[in-house]
């Protein structure tokens, strides 16, 4: 298999020589980034893959030499348009299809990739480039906060549980709603509290006494988290649905604004937040799907720790997000049949995330929205075999290898 490819080196300003794309007779240009070199055999690897899957842009993995002169493999996730808008993480060698690039009005690699259809951008799981130093792709600031303030319906399933939080006994749902009302600068929101029959009258009274738009919906059937969320959704009036557990405490005051702005970006279907345990370690930074099961990215990592790509410091696509805190548009939620009641306790958010992605929308997580999740306090997360089987029956091939968290990023 041969795919004629010419190698070109990007200059310090990130530009590709202007005349090259016009004059070359090659099918592809392999752009080697500043400070990197092409790895032996890389062109052959590229040619093999591009012959099978013709793409407009292709990028691969890298080898870097660390301070201790050790070689470090940097594997890259699938192409993440949101992440690319915040951080050029495509690595050391990027192949561009010449015929396509000629029609684009861009002189830089970044400009070209930004114009590409994400479905035509291919990650090649092979080492294409290497460099003798460690390179951390620099990040760009996200856009300034938007002014659009759609009605957000915050759906909170609860049974009015009491827990020892922050050194005192609290009713979780009351604590959460008061905290959001007191600290969030986002004002256009309503709370839909889906409360079990067993929720004490005193909890209802405390909620009703709060100053916001709070509506109580009764849940009388046996526990089913998905069905409770769906019950809240059919009562919601907002264009945006924020699914929220009651054992959550916001850290970032403008977390709702950040999540709404992200959801309003084109192609994004669901937005999650960075959830921390009470001790400050990471509970959730996106889902991790591998070996036909589902877990969390960076689970129990210190909040200061990150992978070699700096993934946890930047908004980026993930395989899925936890329904403990997830924002989704009402239209999309109803378009995918809400949360599946076949999964009453576990993996319902995995299923929702995969249904959203199957519709062609992307699921993203933002580390700029941080909340504490007191997960273990309120729920026994024991997974039943039937739940795992239900998940596998639907999504077995999609939960085999994670698209956005490669092995070299750590577990």
């Amino acid at each position, binding site marked *: 298999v041969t795919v004629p490819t010419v190698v070109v080196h990007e200059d310090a300003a990130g530009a590709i020589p202007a005349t090259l794309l016009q004059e070359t007779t090659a099918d592809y240009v392999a752009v080697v980034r500043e400070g990197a070199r092409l790895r032996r055999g890389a062109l052959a690897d590229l040619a093999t893959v591009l012959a099978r899957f013709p793409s407009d842009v292709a990028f691969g993995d890298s080898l870097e030499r660390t301070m201790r002169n050790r070689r470090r493999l940097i594997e890259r996730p*699938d192409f993440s348009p949101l992440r690319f808008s915040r951080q050029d993480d495509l690595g050391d060698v990027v192949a561009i299809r010449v015929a396509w690039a000629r029609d684009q009005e861009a002189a830089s690699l970044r400009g070209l990739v930004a114009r590409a259809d994400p479905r035509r951008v291919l990650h090649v799981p092979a080492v294409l480039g290497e460099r003798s130093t460690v390179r951390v792709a620099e990040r760009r600031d996200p856009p300034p906060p938007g002014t659009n303030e759609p009605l957000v319906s915050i759906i909170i399933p609860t049974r009015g549980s009491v827990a020892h939080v922050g050194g005192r006994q609290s009713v979780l749902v009351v604590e959460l709603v008061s905290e959001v009302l007191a600290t969030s600068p986002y004002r256009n929101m309503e709370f839909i509290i889906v409360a079990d029959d067993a929720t004490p009258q005193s909890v*209802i009274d405390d909620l009703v006494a709060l100053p916001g738009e709070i509506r109580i919906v009764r849940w009388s059937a046996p526990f089913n988290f998905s069905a409770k969320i769906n019950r809240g959704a059919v009562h919601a009036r907002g264009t945006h649905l924020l699914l929220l557990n009651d054992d959550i405490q916001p850290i970032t005051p403008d977390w709702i604004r950040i999540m709404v702005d992200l959801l309003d970006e084109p192609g994004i279907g669901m937005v999650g937040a960075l959830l921390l345990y009470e001790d400050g370690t990471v509970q959730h930074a996106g889902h991790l799907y591998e070996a036909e099961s589902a877990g969390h990215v960076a689970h129990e990592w210190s909040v200061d720790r990150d992978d070699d790509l700096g993934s946890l410091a930047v908004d980026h696509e993930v395989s899925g997000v936890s329904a403990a805190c997830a924002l989704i548009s009402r239209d999309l939620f109803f378009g*995918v*049949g809400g949360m599946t009641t076949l999964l009453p306790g576990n993996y319902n958010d995995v299923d929702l995330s995969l*249904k959203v992605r199957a519709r062609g929308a992307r699921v993203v997580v933002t580390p700029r929205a941080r909340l504490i999740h007191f997960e273990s306090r309120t729920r026994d997360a024991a997974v039943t075999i039937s739940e795992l089987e239900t998940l596998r*029956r*639907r999504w077995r*091939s*999609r939960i085999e290898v994670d*698209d956005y968290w490669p092995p070299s990023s750590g577990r």
Partner: protein
Amino acid sequence: VFERWESAAEIPTTAEHLSAERQLALLDRLIGLEVENAELSVTTSLTPSEQLRLEQQVARMRSSLEWRVGRVVTAPFRAVRRQLVR
């Protein structure tokens, strides 16, 4: 336990709401059947990136020590089976 809440904030779930919930469940089952069906023809439904990643996973497994030891251990049985098939 059934608490008879005395609150104007409680909104009743009407037949219309329940119907909307049933529609959600119905659509979910329909999507579920579609994706289960797609699982059966998975090679055509995977994106190129997903296909390459799965191939890499298989290649990794085959180059692992566990796989190679397993191949050595099972080699006599496979040889016998080949003879029997002939």
